[in-house]
């Protein structure tokens, strides 16, 4: 059996060389958190439309390494749109031009020969740049640690089917739980608000009977932590939801506000 990436072995490689592209990249380079940073220009040549955006970056980096230059640092891992690592701000949009897609799932067929592509890291005070396009999103973890859980120790659970949950509630809860924690919502928001992210977790639990007993503490703790991390407020623009690669609905913010309001009333 021939090896998959030795395609030159095949008579007709189906990466159409003729359909390949030459692109110009303007990429944010920043040595570390304290560095000022600046844009650098790179050529990306002979790029196949079947490549993912990150594979295009691999090609650029491979050349930089061989030329003795420093490759561009960026976060990535699963490359199948679920881990939430990748975080590029492409031509002014988090995860690039397509809706409902992470950077790793963005393919070069969405671009055309001669395009100039501007790539920046997420921009938010709560997400300091670590290097180039990689940012520190640990603020998200701290919000989750403040209240993003149901307090149940291992071994305390009753039989799973002893708690029927209406299908619609379960589905809606799942839709909110699909958040991958990438931070595109924050990057998209002019206020750097994290309301969509926090709202998604609050909504997932608010819709489930298991989550009810500590709903009050949960929403208060998570919102307080969100504020402490320096995220901005929501002004209902909706860019977060529009740019969310998992298309989390804006209604999670409404639900969080409702939960928060009633929590404040009951907490008094």
């Amino acid at each position: 059996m021939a090896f998959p990436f030795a395609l030159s072995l095949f008579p007709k490689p189906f990466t159409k060389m003729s359909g390949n592209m030459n692109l110009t990249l303007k990429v944010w380079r920043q040595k570390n958190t304290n560095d000022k940073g600046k844009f650098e220009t790179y050529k990306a040549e002979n790029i196949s439309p079947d490549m993912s955006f990150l594979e295009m970056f691999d090609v650029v980096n491979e050349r930089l390494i061989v030329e003795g230059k420093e490759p561009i640092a960026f976060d990535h891992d699963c490359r199948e749109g679920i881990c939430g690592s990748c975080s590029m701000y492409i031509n002014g949009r988090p995860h690039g031009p397509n809706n409902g897609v992470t950077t790793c799932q963005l393919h070069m067929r969405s671009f055309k020969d001669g395009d100039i592509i501007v790539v920046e890291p997420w921009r938010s005070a709560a997400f300091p740049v670590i290097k180039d396009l990689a940012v520190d999103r640990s603020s998200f973890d701290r919000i989750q640690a403040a209240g993003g859980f149901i307090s149940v120790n291992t071994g305390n659970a009753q039989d799973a089917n002893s708690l029927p949950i209406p299908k619609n509630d379960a589905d809606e809860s799942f839709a909110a739980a699909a958040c991958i924690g990438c931070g595109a919502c924050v990057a998209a928001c002019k206020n750097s608000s994290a309301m969509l992210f926090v709202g998604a977790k609050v909504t997932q639990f608010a819709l489930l009977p298991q989550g009810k007993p500590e709903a009050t503490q949960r929403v208060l703790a998570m919102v307080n932590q969100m504020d402490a991390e320096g995220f901005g407020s929501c002004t209902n623009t909706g860019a977060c939801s529009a740019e969310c690669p998992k298309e989390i609905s804006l209604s999670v913010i409404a639900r969080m506000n409702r939960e928060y309001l009633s929590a404040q009333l009951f907490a008094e």
Partner: protein
Amino acid sequence: MSKLDSKIPEGPIDQKWTKYKSTIPLVNPANKRHLEVIVVGSGLAGSSAAATLAEMGYSVKVFCFQDSARRAHSIAAQGGINAAKNYQNDGDSVYRLFYDTIKGGDYRAREGNVHRLAEVSGSIIDQCVAQGVPFAREYGGLLSNRSFGGTQVQRTFYAAGQTGQQLLLGAYSGLNRQIGLGNVKMYARHEMLDIVNIDGKCRGIIARDLVTGKLERHFGHAVLLCTGGYGNVFYLSTNAMGSNVTAAWKAHKRGAMFANPCYTQIHPTCIPVSGDHQSKLTLMSESLRNDGRIWVPKKKEDVEAIRAGKKKGSDIPEEDRDYYLERRYPAFGNLVPRDVASRASKERCDAGYGVNKTGEAVYLDFASNMKYKYGKQVATLKGIANPTEAQLTEFGKEVVKEKYGNLFDMYKQITGEDPYEIPMMIYPAVHYTMGGLWVDYNLMTNIEGLYALGEANFSDHGANRLGASALMQGLADGYFVIPYTIGAYLSKEIGTKAIPTDKEEFAKTEQEVQDRINKFFAIKGTKSVDYFHKRLGKIMWEKCGMARNKEGLEWAIAEIQKIREEFWKDVRVPGDANEFNPELEKANRVADFIELGELMCKDALNRNESCGGHFREEFQTEEGEAMRDDENYKYVAAWEMKEVGNWELHKEDLIYENIKIAQRSYK
């Protein structure tokens, strides 16, 4: 004789765990606080173990190389998790799950471990639901199930095609709760680069802070490696880019035995390679085989026409399609286990029936079930007596979308083709590794105090893992096994004070790690790390992949040795050590993969039989099925490293007292 004592408890199979569990020594709460446990890896096994141990009162540190514990690669598991709940009333039981798993593993797993896995499977589902994991449900509000390969019951619980994500977020929420309570200290963006052994016991790790590049020493009374599998040794696999063998390999180099390294799972349904830029492969969940039928054309002229773009899969009439799995395995059909399905695809493609330009793809087709199964169901529900074809398609599409929507979207993103309209094209790819660190019944390696959980160990899946069993094993190990079995060791450690990390052994190990890092930068070669990784991957895939033979393996071993030599002479690692440096991380991992690759080939060469994912061309039946040699190879091959490139084989005999071993048949 053998250094390997599996410590399987005595007694009848269905009482071993219950009885043993209630006799393991306990640690009282006051002592637990003074016992420190290091957990490396934050996937299902790591997060669930860390959360549970912290709940019990132990003092826990968790390390992961990702920027958040939530991004461990368990997140990408799609299809589901098995549990012997018998909610579908289809005759499932603990025994059946046990039996299916042993048989699925081609009789190369331990009975004791697998039975325990089946026993605790139900509790996992209970725990996850209690945590708020939004599993799929029926309209009555109860949990929904589907089928996976190698079984004839519906025991797989799922959350659309994102089950791994939802389970991991559940475990991550439990972990976060303990972080918030101060019981767990989390070290994200930290990579373990060695273990520290003191007086024959594992007492800590050396980790690199990936942001600052600083090496750190951490003490633990026990160290748990929950670091996943090593599929990336093939360069192209469904693993995440960062998935690596380093933690397990460092432990191996410090004395832990590596068991059955050649048992690799090649998953039948992945998106075919699109070009030489390919950096990873994407799985299309096995759950799709519930509703998708796998086929290639019967006629060569149709194959030619498809490859030339003159015909589409949907143009081929029913009678000219070869549903080869249904033809060869009528009892299980499209739901045969992964190793069987992969080999069958390879057989058809090797015979010239592959349906893409490289000849390495087969169809996975939903059209008939979409229309005639789901379309009809919905039409009936809506009271439409004579639905049109268009209506059937429309209705069926909605159901398929709900079941597999995210997978279909992903397929479209990657290939640019809409699988609702034309059949998917798929081909096998490396997905999971059944081999791993040798562990006993307590999940302890042969180094005292060092444990391996989840995919990082070897214990439960034999030579082939069944679908939806990886999530089950990861969570079983973390939630329901290690919290008990670790007591057997830690109860003896209550008198051990925390060892200061300025002790000689820590300093020496750190220096060795530092020396290796310095060496990378000193080489200043001409080739990137990826160059070597791709070369290694190509050899592994061609000679130690879906089919292996003696000649190929011997050649591969010699080639890999050459790669190792060249790597250490000519690799280029840019930047420096005291900064965020992804290339350095890769270099560290690939150096270990090269050493592992050689061992995998040696193990494959040693095993003169075919079993599960290990298929030696010399050992097959007339029908091309795997031919085991139970007389000579019914053992776990555990390798002890003497030095790089030199190993000693230890054997742990597998004893079957409850299951009669037989030629595996899915016909």
